[in-house]
């Protein structure tokens, strides 16, 4: 009889654990109806169903990078450069709203690349990022930089981006945008300084070759 009653303490323990987990840590992800599932929806939902949410976001991130490096997707609006960049970014960030790197990377591309130049889309991505990560200030500095760019105030845009590149997880792309901006505006010493930051950062390894080239072109020796 006693052995049969043994199940109740376990049930109570499971109940306490269940309610406690929910009370101390509210579910931090948006409901699944907010997912962007037009492309690769099956892949994302399958991975999430198997319990690999962040891995699904990571694979979405690789898809995005391949898109950025490779060009067009089937059925894409070809009248605009990288028309799918915003939806592909939101695909990643709706799976994992705390993928902060994706917000900064894509919004910088959308706003600062001359062949794209869609600052409004960039701000949409950033505002979603700010809503999900209110304490992550590089999103605000990137938004400010976009604002200054729209107002054609390069110096203030550069000041905002300088703050962003101090962050250890700042995308190399942002550093490259800033360095190229300095070069364009004749501030060669600043351009060399930013490329040197890239060269000295082991996590920017993919850009080391370009950084060395740029430093040589700008007439300085790599540090």
């Amino acid at each position, binding site marked *: 009889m006693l052995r049969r009653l043994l199940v109740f303490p376990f049930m109570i323990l499971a109940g306490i654990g269940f309610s406690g987990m929910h009370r101390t840590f509210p579910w931090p992800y948006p409901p699944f109806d907010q997912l962007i599932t037009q492309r690769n929806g099956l892949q994302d939902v399958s991975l999430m169903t198997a319990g690999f949410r962040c891995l699904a976001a990571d694979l979405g991130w690789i898809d995005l990078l391949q898109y950025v490096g490779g060009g067009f997707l089937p059925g894409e609006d070809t009248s605009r450069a990288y028309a799918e960049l915003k939806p592909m970014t939101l695909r990643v960030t709706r799976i994992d709203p705390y993928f902060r790197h994706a917000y900064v990377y894509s919004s910088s591309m959308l706003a600062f690349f001359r062949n794209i130049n869609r600052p409004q889309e960039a701000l949409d991505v950033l505002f979603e990022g700010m809503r999900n990560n209110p304490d992550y200030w590089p999103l605000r500095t990137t938004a400010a930089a976009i604002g200054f760019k729209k107002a054609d105030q390069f110096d203030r845009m550069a000041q905002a981006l300088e703050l962003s590149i101090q962050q250890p997880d700042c995308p190399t792309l942002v550093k490259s945008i800033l360095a190229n901006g300095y070069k364009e505006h004749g501030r060669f010493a600043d351009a060399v300084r930013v490329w040197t930051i890239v060269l000295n950062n082991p*996590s920017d390894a993919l850009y080391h070759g370009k950084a060395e080239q740029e430093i040589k072109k700008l007439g300085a020796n790599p540090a």
Partner: protein
Amino acid sequence: MENFFLLVRDTFKEHVRHRLYLSLFLFCFILLGGGLVASSLAVDERARLMLDFGLSAIEFLGLTTIVFISVNFILTEIENRTIYLVLSRPIPRGQYILGRFAGTILAVTAAMAVMALLHGLLLVPLHSAATVPVYLAAWACSVAKLVVVGSLALALSLFSTSAPTAMTFTLFLWAMGHFSEELRFLGEKSANAFVKLLVWIFYHAAPNFAYFNYRDFLYANHPPTTAWFLFLLCYTVGYAGVCLWISAFLFARKEF
């Protein structure tokens, strides 16, 4: 108690000598190697991808192994009639279930620990942001999930008596357990009272595996607190306890 530890030791040895156990490491090498290649595509986020990929691979291998072993282990012993050798001795059936389960969990956890060590060594040169305590917490949550899945698989194997059925049900509950928050959302949206009730029952009765994914939560703005870990431990012990109690109950009613 001595019998219990003997059972645990024998089960552990039996699993470690099994071919499946060795192939687990082979798959781990392949997956982690694949992770290294895939992570190189992630450019700036290589360390994050390698961390997620490795932890997911370790969990996936651990869970598939535990499901396969837990479902087949006792059923095979019954089929081969080797179970008579054990049960002819003065060992209570509940103790037999508990000993076998503990030995299995120990063996798979040991494999997961070796895989985690290997993964950790790969993460060091990538300058991963995850500290050792954070990594260990994520790994421990995967082990907790393994305990719940293993106990569930064991209960289902004794309930259904067919290994494929038990495996299918376990995998179904595994998937639904990761979808429980979405199910709750669906239930809240439904206007039908019956659907609401059904979803409510399922949400509370099925294991909520989504809450074991600390490896996902560590990126959140406010990661779980120490109290959360204690509640997770309560949930793991409670849920696995209920499943093991059901297993012992079903096993006690079996006639050999």
